[in-house]
């Protein structure tokens, strides 16, 4: 079965600095990959997804993630973060059209 490892439980950064949240997965078959975000006191919401095609996917608020099959990674990046990006970020993987497994999450704290 598939599994997800988020390598950092907490990432503190200053506003306007770049950030990378790391995600590695384990699977014996082709996978679909996702990043979800949970803002304080809100439910999880989809940030971006990789299903097929271009290995670089982008969100509407400036985040991007790159699927690297050889390294089994799907790291999330943003070149310049804002205070409003403070949230918990979850990487998720699915091997089929149903099951979705989540990582433990990375808490991103953006400081002024």
């Amino acid at each position, binding site marked *: 079965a598939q599994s997800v490892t988020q390598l950092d*439980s907490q990432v503190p950064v200053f506003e306007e600095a770049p950030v990378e949240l790391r995600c590695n997965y384990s699977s014996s078959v082709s996978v679909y990959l996702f990043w979800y975000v949970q803002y304080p006191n809100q439910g999880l919401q*989809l940030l971006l997804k990789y299903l097929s095609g271009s290995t670089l996917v982008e969100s509407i608020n400036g985040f991007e993630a790159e699927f690297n099959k050889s390294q089994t990674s799907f790291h999330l990046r943003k070149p310049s973060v804002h205070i409003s990006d403070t949230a918990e970020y979850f990487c998720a993987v699915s091997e089929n059209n149903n099951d979705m*497994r989540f990582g433990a999450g990375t808490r991103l704290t953006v400081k002024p």
Partner: protein
Amino acid sequence: EAEVAQSPRYKITEKSQAVAFWCDPISGHATLYWYRQILGQGPELLVQFQDESVVDDSQLPKDRFSAERLKGVDSTLKIQPAELGDSAMYLCASRDRLRWGELFFGEGSRLTVL
């Protein structure tokens, strides 16, 4: 904007008592999920429904947990009897059958077992 509704938001109970959580997915979403999220961990799938049928309940502790979605719309997750280790956030999510991977989550029900 359509949302996934969950209730109650918070529940405090004593061990050995019964608890129930309710979820109303976004209208038209055939797929419904219940996840459990223990503090500091990611969501763990408990059960998945496609319409009124259970697709996956392999991680559901069936000796004490049960879930139903009788009419293929709203769903109830029950715990009886509750144990201390059940303290967690219980999340409901739904998905349109055509929009693969995009789960819409409710705000969750936080359970504290004393």
